[in-house]
């Protein structure tokens, strides 16, 4: 009686387990599928035809590593010689910012602070001020009197560039901005302003003759007019009479 029970139990268990195995297999996979075999079973599979190597290739295979190291020795070294030969960045690399100018030398920044508001890292500080007839730095009403970017905070995401309505703020490819102290990493306006190009006049100066800020914005001003040049010549003649310090002193005047 007990034996019979055991036997029944046994057969039932086996059948149950076979069913279980069937069920547990993923769909479309049968018991005969040997895609996923253990290393032990693969040994048998190795007897199936595979690509035969040449006699010498097979003989030298155990010391093939020496060939690898030797041929690598003749290859070009991949290391970048950074400080001596810096590699150029990608054309649109997000580097240090730059405050652009119009072709006659007036600044594009209008002190609207949109860049500062767009900045997710709160790295930009802008203080706008009114342009006057005596001291005009940009076309239109306002100009950025204080412009600071804190490169300890900046994440170079470029949202400020997207926010700028006059294309005053863009980014350069320069990335060497390390310093041992904090203060020098807060860049001021005179550090961020684009360099003067040929023909540009140093602000403050009046707008080009017979134009308004719309003309500037639409790109109709392509260079300084004679009136502007005259104004600057007058102004510089006065300043050089007063003090002999040259452009650095004038840069100080921006701040």
């Amino acid at each position, binding site marked *: 009686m007990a034996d019979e029970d055991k036997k029944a139990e046994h057969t039932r268990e086996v059948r149950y387990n076979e069913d279980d195995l069937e069920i547990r297999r993923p769909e479309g996979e049968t018991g005969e599928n040997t895609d996923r075999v253990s290393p032990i079973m693969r040994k048998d599979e190795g007897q199936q035809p595979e690509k035969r190597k040449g006699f010498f290739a097979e003989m030298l295979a155990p010391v093939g590593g020496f060939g690898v*190291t030797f041929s690598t020795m003749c290859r070009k070294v991949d290391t970048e010689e950074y400080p001596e030969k810096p590699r150029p960045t990608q054309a649109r690399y997000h580097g240090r910012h730059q405050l652009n100018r119009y072709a006659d030398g007036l600044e594009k920044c209008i002190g609207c602070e949109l860049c500062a508001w767009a900045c997710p890292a709160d790295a930009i500080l802008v203080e706008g001020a009114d342009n006057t007839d005596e001291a005009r730095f940009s076309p239109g009403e306002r100009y950025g009197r204080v412009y600071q970017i804190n490169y300890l905070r900046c994440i170079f995401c470029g949202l400020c560039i997207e926010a700028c309505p006059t294309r005053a703020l863009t980014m350069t490819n320069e990335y060497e901005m390390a310093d041992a102290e904090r203060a020098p990493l807060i860049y001021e306006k005179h550090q961020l302003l684009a360099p003067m190009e040929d023909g540009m006049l140093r602000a403050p100066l009046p707008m080009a003759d017979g134009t308004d800020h719309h003309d500037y914005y639409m790109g109709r001003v392509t260079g300084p007019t004679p009136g502007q040049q005259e104004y600057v010549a007058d102004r510089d003649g006065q300043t050089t009479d007063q003090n002999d310090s040259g452009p650095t002193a004038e840069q100080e005047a921006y701040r």
Partner: protein
Amino acid sequence: MIAAQLVQHAGEGLALGPAVPTADVPAADFSDTPWWLTLIKGQMVFVFLLLNVLVVIWFERRVVGQMQQRPGPNRFGPFGLFQTLADGLKLMMKEDVIPSNADRVMFIVAPLITGALAFVSFAIIPMGAEVEMFGHTTPLQLTDTPVATLLVLAVAGVGAYGFVLAGWSSGSTYPLLGGLRSTAQVISYEIAMGLSLVAVFLYAGSMSTSQIVAAQADLWYIIPLFFSFVIYLVTMVGETNRLPFDLAEGEGELGGGFHTEYSSMKFGMFFLGEYINMFTVSALATTLFLGGWMAPPGIAWINDGMFNEGWWTFLWFFLKMWLFIFGYVWLRGSLPRVRYDQFMKLGWKIMIPAALAWVVAVAFIRAAQIGYFGDSIWATIITVAAIAVLVIFGLLLWDRRSQAAQEAEQRSRQAPDEVDPFAGGYPVPPLPGQRLVERPRAVTAAEPVTVDAGSGPTHDSPEDDRGR
């Protein structure tokens, strides 16, 4: 002069049959070398080795760097050549720590033994033919003795004391293990190395290094004794504790091995010793198998042997020695460290028996060549043929054995068709293609409970059936 005579003599012996092996005196002629010139030459060897070490460390780092597609040290000096100088200075400036557990005397003596003995062996290396130096004609070799080659082995054996004592006196576990490994390594591989040298002695009829070089005037021993050369190459890496056999200082296993507790210039001495040992064994390999300072064939024939005398010979010696150094670096760039048991197995079960068999074969061939088996030229040919047949037969036998062993292993690995998942005491899933054989359970399952339709719970809304 004497060298030439001896070579001639040996050649006659080869041609004419039985001849007494050449006299066991060095071929180098030191009669015109005053004591002060010997002193100067000793200084020159010392400086030569030190400069070589400075260059080889840089060379190794550069070459291994190139092998890994990076430049290696390139900052200090042209191509980073002075990097080793800077590193050496740094080593000297560092704090010299002696652990409180250490045996102070031995801890200090051990690096001195290693560093000092490394220089000794180079005394007997013939670095060139006779040259004019300060008005005297003297060979480019510090000294030579009838048993000069044995001196190298002896000094290497004593040098091992440096490693052992360093390991023991550090009073810490890893250095001790490293020291023990180092001893075992030197002992195991010096046997095979000595046996590979025996074949050279049999051919040259002398242990004097200058005479071994002279005996290779016609044929470098790398050709007739290629097998010895291979054994020597392997054992010299084992002897010098270099990758892939640097088990005595395996960083991954033993911290730093025998020099774990060493710092500053004491560590520097081990470093220095290791690199000079590299040069010593490379120079010995050059001397024994590559014709020492002899110009390579082809160049040797130019202009009536112009390049085979004077200071030119030093160039050939230098190039050949550095060939081995490059081999060392190449090994280091290519191979990982072997396991300790594999290393010992290679030494005792393969190198020593193979070297022994080879020495016996060389002895027979040499005896036939010299004429112990009769004057006929057939004696040599028959001996070589008999040895070849034996070797082939042995190889076949060995191949069959290893194949049978491989098949047996394959069979033992074959997974059985049926698997009892609980055989090992814990459940194991069956491999694909295997069938489960389930044992009956110890506890039988309970009878299924039959539930009649009326007794089940009643549901009022379809929501009660959620999840069923």
